[in-house]
């Protein structure tokens, strides 16, 4: 057994014993990754912060059920993704029309989307921001199952094996969902943009 496996096993034991300091270490270790994933899934800052906290509360409550079949990080991701999907479905039911994703994102951060060469002219900057916004809106309109694979693969850069572990889906399903998600996104962006992309 590798040292890292052994230390992770000991760490999990401490978590199962409800060691408060161990849990704080877990929060410190994963909070950035969990928050970013949740933010990308939900698209709203305050919602993401609250949801990320909820994810850690769920982990605290459910750590006894962690059997060690996967890495701790994968399990954390799985809880985060499932929590987000439930939240998206809940929000979709409650305020289908009122959702304003990415409303609080600042323009400079958003502007990083376009490459530096694209940003060399002000009109290109505006076009880049507009396109980015359209993509964000289109992703926010997407069904949670498709959004999930799109974020995990195209933004989080996870392997298909990792995505399968997190989602519990077979690889074929993950690939086909990803393909459909990209096609849906392309169609939605082109519809909003009024021109073809790529």
């Amino acid at each position, binding site marked *: 057994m590798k040292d890292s496996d052994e230390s992770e096993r000991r760490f999990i034991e401490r978590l199962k014993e*409800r060691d*408060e*300091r161990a849990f*704080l270490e877990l*929060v*410190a270790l994963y*909070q*950035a990754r*969990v*928050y*970013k994933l949740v*933010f*990308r899934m939900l698209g709203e*800052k305050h919602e993401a*912060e*609250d949801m*990320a*906290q*909820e994810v*850690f*509360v769920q982990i*605290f409550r459910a750590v006894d059920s962690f059997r060690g079949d996967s890495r701790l990080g994968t399990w954390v991701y799985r809880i985060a993704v499932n929590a987000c999907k439930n939240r998206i479905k809940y929000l979709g039911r409650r305020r289908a029309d009122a959702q304003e994703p990415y409303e609080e*994102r600042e323009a400079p*951060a*958003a502007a*990083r*989307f*376009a490459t530096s060469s694209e940003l060399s002219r002000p009109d290109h900057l505006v076009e880049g921001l507009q*396109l*980015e*916004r359209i*993509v*964000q809106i289109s*992703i926010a309109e997407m069904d949670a199952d498709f959004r999930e694979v*799109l*974020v995990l693969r*195209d*933004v989080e850069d996870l392997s298909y094996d990792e995505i399968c572990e997190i989602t519990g889906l*077979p690889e*074929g*399903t993950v*690939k*086909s*969902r990803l*393909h*459909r998600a*990209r096609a849906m*996104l*392309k169609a939605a*962006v082109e519809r909003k943009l009024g021109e073809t*992309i*790529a």
Partner: protein
Amino acid sequence: MTDSNDLPNDSEGERVTDDAIRTLVRGALGTAEDPPDLTRGVQEKIRVRSRGKFYADGWSTTKHPPVTTYLVTSVLMLVAMGLIYALLHPLSGEPAPARPPEPVRVLPGP
């Protein structure tokens, strides 16, 4: 649900489109803001939901021990004790001088 019948073709055109979409998605979602510190919020939620069973003592479970708080509290206690001593000492007065014992007088017997 398995929908592996819809697996994508690996044609060059589709691959290029997928790459373009991937770049778009990464550009639109890849620059998530710096995450806030979630520790306090998580602690609070667990404390409330466990009805104080966990994280009851906020001080001892923070990431960094509050050394400054301990130091300031100690110094304030020392100052308070010094003040109390300075106030009460003049009121206490001097102890009565010790008198040497009287010599024992042996009475003559009957």
